[in-house]
């Protein structure tokens, strides 16, 4: 009797759960997909206007979610372990793990079909080769740094030593070329200015050391020696046909750079909390206008800091940053700014095996590369977000610009699907830029006055001009970080790479803060050598040779 009751109760519970599951299914002619990007980002509101426009045209709506409080690798690790895959994913540094786990759908069949020609068009055959994994298939396409037609680039989306424009203005716009000149200027400015107008104490220089973002302190030596951002190594081109891998951690320039930071720290010019600050604290400091200069990637700070400066009116006080192309000695050529596209084959947008309708997913990816949707994603709705003049050029009124700088407005209105395939450069109409940020007229209209004055004083028209890097295409191997980012601890080189990272995380701030730099540097070098960097460098050389061969053959 009792067991019957229990049975009945169990059945009732199960039916209840079943009923709830039934409720969860919404009836909608539009297919809903999910996407996870291994980057911090902002979720947009449900019913976002442009998202709905795109859904009307494509029949697909994608709910994007972003990284919160984890590293990319941890996020991917737990997604794979839990088997809870979204339909689309950009795995960032964890992309290879997704491939290893067999979670991704190969692109090859789709790329071969004419219906997906927009996807195929993203890269040349030779470039697609770089995405090929060990099993001979392609699983993702990087969505960034891909120029359609003529480049319209106005920004410097890369790394640099940045400086607030007010400091340059104060010094009457001098030409700053070396590391020594840079810190000398910061010191002179700081000697006369200790506080901002609002009472915030000025900190001349800071340096983020947190987790993977420690590149801010770590990789400057490669640039100071004049090399481009291969990220983990220098590629020496003395013999162009047989380039070699060089370790930038142990070069004389590296020692000089850290000795300089040590000197700056001991003079009290450096943020005393630089080594322990979190990314959020760092963003807050930059947004307060307290920091005169730092070394960082544009994408690592500008998308948070610039809107904050604008919102608080600090942009009018000249707290915005411009990049400087510093080298260790005067008169060296630098490669802080790379022209042309940087193809990072290590990660990109992928479709997962849990996607119920991969054909539809790929059709969607293909469709959103059509110009009408690209315009919707980056310019918005015509008449509402931009206007077209008699020559067919797009422009915005100040109100439209303000809207797009307002986070509440963008959350309910703007949907750029920023981690899905896209183009930079020139629109298919041959006149406009793909995005407003690259439209020359729009670019200048959105700059604050002190920035405009600075651009004019130097006679520059883009951020890239500040660096003064030569306009040249990078070699086919570039960038090498697309390999090291995905190394695993299953190889000796990968283990060495992990250990080198741990070692540098601890020692780089230590040598900067040391009372006796030379002895600290020697201790660091001993600890560094114990990580067997030679294993890592050998693996990188093998990969470089492979890429050089690939570049020659294709």
């Amino acid at each position, binding site marked *: 009797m009792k067991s019957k009751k229990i049975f009945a109760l169990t059945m009732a519970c199960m039916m209840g759960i079943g009923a709830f599951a039934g409720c969860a299914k919404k009836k909608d002619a539009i297919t809903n997909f999910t996407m996870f990007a291994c980057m911090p980002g902002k979720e947009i509101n449900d019913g976002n206007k442009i998202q709905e426009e795109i859904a009307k045209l494509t029949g697909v709506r994608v709910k994007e979610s972003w990284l919160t409080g984890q590293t990319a690798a*941890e996020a991917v690790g737990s997604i794979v372990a839990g088997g809870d895959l979204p339909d689309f994913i950009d795995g960032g540094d964890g992309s290879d793990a997704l491939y290893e786990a067999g979670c991704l759908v190969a692109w090859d069949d789709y790329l071969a079909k004419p219906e997906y020609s927009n996807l195929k068009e993203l890269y040349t055959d030779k470039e697609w080769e770089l995405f090929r994994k060990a099993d001979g298939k392609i699983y993702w396409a990087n969505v960034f740094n891909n120029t359609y037609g003529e480049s319209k680039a106005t920004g410097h989306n890369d790394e640099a030593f940045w400086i607030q424009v007010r400091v340059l203005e104060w010094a009457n716009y001098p030409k700053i070329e070396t590391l020594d000149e840079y810190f000398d200027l910061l010191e002179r400015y700081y000697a006369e200015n200790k506080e901002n107008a609002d009472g915030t104490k000025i900190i001349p220089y800071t340096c983020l050391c947190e987790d993977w973002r420690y590149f801010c302190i770590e990789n400057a030596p490669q640039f100071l020696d004049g090399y481009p951002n291969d990220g983990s190594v220098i590629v020496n081109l003395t013999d162009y046909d047989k380039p070699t891998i060089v370790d930038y951690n142990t070069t004389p320039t590296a020692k000089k750079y850290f000795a300089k930071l040590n000197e700056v720290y001991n003079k009290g010019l450096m943020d005393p*909390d630089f080594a*322990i600050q979190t990314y959020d604290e760092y963003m807050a400091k930059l947004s307060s206008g307290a920091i005169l200069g730092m070394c960082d990637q544009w994408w690592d700070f500008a998308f948070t800091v610039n809107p904050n400066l604008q919102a608080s009116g600090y942009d009018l006080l000249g707290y915005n940053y411009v990049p400087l192309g510093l080298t260790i000695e005067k008169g060296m050529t630098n490669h802080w700014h790379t022209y042309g596209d940087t193809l990072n084959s290590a990660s990109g947008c992928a479709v997962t095996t849990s996607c119920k309708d991969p054909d539809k997913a790929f059709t969607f990816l293909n469709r959103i590369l059509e110009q009408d949707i690209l315009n919707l994603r980056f310019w918005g709705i015509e008449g509402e977000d931009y206007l077209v003049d008699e020559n067919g050029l797009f422009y915005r009124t100040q109100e439209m610009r303000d809207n797009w700088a307002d986070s509440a407005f963008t959350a309910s209105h703007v949907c750029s699907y920023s981690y899905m395939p896209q183009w930079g450069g020139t629109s298919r109409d041959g006149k406009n830029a793909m995005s407003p940020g690259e439209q020359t007229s729009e670019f200048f209209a959105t700059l604050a006055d002190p920035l405009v004055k600075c651009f004019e004083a130097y006679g520059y028209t883009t951020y890239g001009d500040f660096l003064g890097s030569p306009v040249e295409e990078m070699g086919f191997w570039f960038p090498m970080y697309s390999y090291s980012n995905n190394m695993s601890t299953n190889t000796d080189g990968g283990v060495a790479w992990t250990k080198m990272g741990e070692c540098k995380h*601890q020692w780089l701030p230590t040598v900067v803060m040391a009372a006796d730099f030379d002895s600290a540097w020697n201790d660091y070098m001993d600890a560094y050598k114990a990580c067997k960097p030679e294993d890592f460098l050998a693996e990188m050389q093998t990969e470089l040779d492979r890429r050089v061969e690939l570049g020659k053959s294709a």
Partner: protein
Amino acid sequence: MSLKDSKTPALKKLSDKAEVKRQSVLLIIAAIYVIYGIVFYYLPLVGWLMAFQTYKIKDGLFGSEFVGLKWFKFLFSDATFVRVVRNTLAMGVLNLVSQTVTAIAFAILLSEVRNVLGKKLVQTISYLPHFLSWIVVTSIVHEAFSTSGIINEVLVNLHILSKPISFFSHTQYFWPIVAISNVWKETGWNAIIYLATISSIDPALYEAAAMDGAGRWQKIKHITLPGLRSTIIILLIMNIGNVINAGFEVQYLLGNGLLQSVSQTIDIYVLNYGVGKMNYSIGTAAGLFKTFVSMTLIFLFNFIAKKTGDERLF
């Protein structure tokens, strides 16, 4: 738990079958827990196999290459892992000692308070931090110990320091900070069980002692502490196995690159290699080692307790 062992005469007469029927509901309820235990505690142990393989998700648990003790050799030749074990044990012992001592001291102090309202108030306030999540506590700790935080401000104003110390830039402060955070968060909560034990001590003992002329201090020394003895031993045995669980969130949230040589625990190492670098094999091997140490500690302490004739677990 099981009614079968009870020696009531009525039950003795029943046949096995009849008894099963009589207890069917109880058996079903018990079975749920047994199944739960098997599914969630014992079945996952099959995953220990990964420690002896080069595990690849694609190949699965039974298809991955078997490599024997390779990963254990890797671990013990890895200076980082050895350091991580040291950190874990050091912080575990530090936490255990500081928490036990403060909890007992706090319980005794509180039991001596005669004002009931004041006692209840202090007790409630003191165990509230237990319910805060570590992410909140570490934010408070981080702020308090920062160069512009309250600790530095007090020390500088008292002229103990000439200028603020950046506590999180120096390795020597990290373990004490973790211990202090744990004490702050858990003392009130841990004291509850001691308070309960103290209140169960026969008041006649105190009265007799008072008549013999014992003061407060002597009563604590000769009645309260001996009365707590068995509780302390049992809790120590149970917690000793947790020494190796020195923590994950505190160290993960308070640590930074500069402090990693003292801040990383085995759990963080497992996360870094297992989940972060997707090397499940190293992660499992490190976890397995942790289990082994934990079991050894419990058996060892239980053995010592048995030898000294005190309370023990088994």
